[in-house]
């Protein structure tokens, strides 16, 4: 209720001054403690799925990878190398080839 009251005041303030305007009332913050959801989704079984599950899920969940469009082997290799070189992903060197193959085969990419 306080929030909507405050919002009404702020909206009035802005209506009269389209650019930066002074806020009308003091504002207080409240400490926050939450739990973020996690994902236990694994990459679907197939050749190389162990390699991708073991190397890639530390930094990000599987969902976004599985949402990618069909990409060429070259494009996937560039992505995996970006993760290793730019984002310092601790991917075991012997697994890189398998991960790229897995991703390339994921959606029958050309």
């Amino acid at each position, binding site marked *: 209720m306080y929030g909507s009251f405050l919002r009404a005041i702020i909206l009035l303030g802005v209506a009269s001054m389209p650019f930066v305007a002074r806020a009308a009332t003091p504002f207080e*913050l*409240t400490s926050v403690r939450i739990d*973020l*959801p996690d994902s236990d989704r694994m990459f679907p079984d197939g050749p190389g799925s162990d390699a991708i599950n073991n190397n890639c899920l530390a930094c990000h969940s599987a969902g976004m990878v599985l*949402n990618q469009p069909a990409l060429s082997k070259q494009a996937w290799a560039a992505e995996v190398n970006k993760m290793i070189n730019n984002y310092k992903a601790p991917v075991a060197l012997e697994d890189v080839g398998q991960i790229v193959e897995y991703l390339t085969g994921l*959606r029958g990419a050309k």
Partner: protein
Amino acid sequence: MAEIGDLHHLITRRRLLGVASVGALALTSPSRAETTIDLPLPGGPGARPITTGFPQKGPMILQRTRPPLLETPFEVFDKGVFTPNDQFYVRWHWAVIPTDIDIGKFSLTVRGHVNRTLSLSLNDILHGLPSVQLSAVNQCSGNSRGLFQPRVPGGQWANGAMGNALWTGVRLKDVLDKAGVKPGSVQVRFKGLEEPVVADAPHFMKSLDIDHARDGEVMIAYAMNGEQLPLVNGFPLRLVVPGWYATYWVKMLNDIEVLNEPDTNYWTKVAYTIPDTPHANIKPGETNVKMVPINRMVPRSFVTNIASSQQVKSGAPTTLRGITFGGDCGVASVDYSIDRGKSWHQAQLGKDEGNYGFRQWQTQFTLPSPGKYTLLTRCTNSNGVAQPDTPNWNPAGFMRNVVESVDIIAA
């Protein structure tokens, strides 16, 4: 598992061990999908869960659980120009995000090429400096990336990686003046509390030129739409850079460093760069292109009350409504076409809430006879820049702002 030594977070260590023994996982509960949505991404896949599993958030399109990428369902934009906090999109780079913020312990450091290093409490910021407010669009550089053709890797957003809020906070200029910027300063670098999982990975940081940082518009926000920010939108402090892409709007801002030489950190110099060409547009496969950091936004407009493939009556007035924004300035006009761009008609603009925010537009039109029609909408901003007729392309999928189309059927 020697690589565990490289990882410095307990949660991550547990995860690495966890994924090595599949089947024995006992992680925290996954975000529950109530339903799914099918985003119209060319070639797919477009199916995404709608999640309500994120604290302080309502129903969101789940692009990635960890680190969170949550897209605003597009129908939200029909409700008004201010995007509700609980459906404002979410985008994080690194998975180590503090989930427990004590407002009594949080502090913002201002350091570097300054006369006085500052450590400001939230109380100092809320009550020790003049407060300002501004309506401004926060849009991901890669908003609409999933619509690029040929497709490019990255977050596969439809058009919902954007939102508009009324931001309340303090001027960055006032904070910098309090520290006293030394002569010879060239940039200001911003860092938040998020941390990479891997210790030697580049901490997320962004920089602005000193004159931009001191322009009196860039602000440090502690409220959006009259409420404190949801944690996943950057509580307690977020940089607001009006007219610039959201990559600069650093979340959980706790460190400001004034630099006396240009920032060369990865996130400013290498990531988030665009071809230095009109519309950041190149041909797929084109190489040897000069790249520059992404910067000012460009105009966009959307229909919000009629979805593609929707049926309307022919020979009767139909109301068309949407939102628009000018990018780095205000909106001059929104035009629409019902004949694939042969003729254009001006729509009525709604209330002006400020140059950098969403603005509603509305019109009525009558489709003369039954059949298929394509509606086009085009914003021209107050600098005279209009949305282009053809989509741009670049390998990162940045800065899409082509004239949007909606296919409708008159019956």
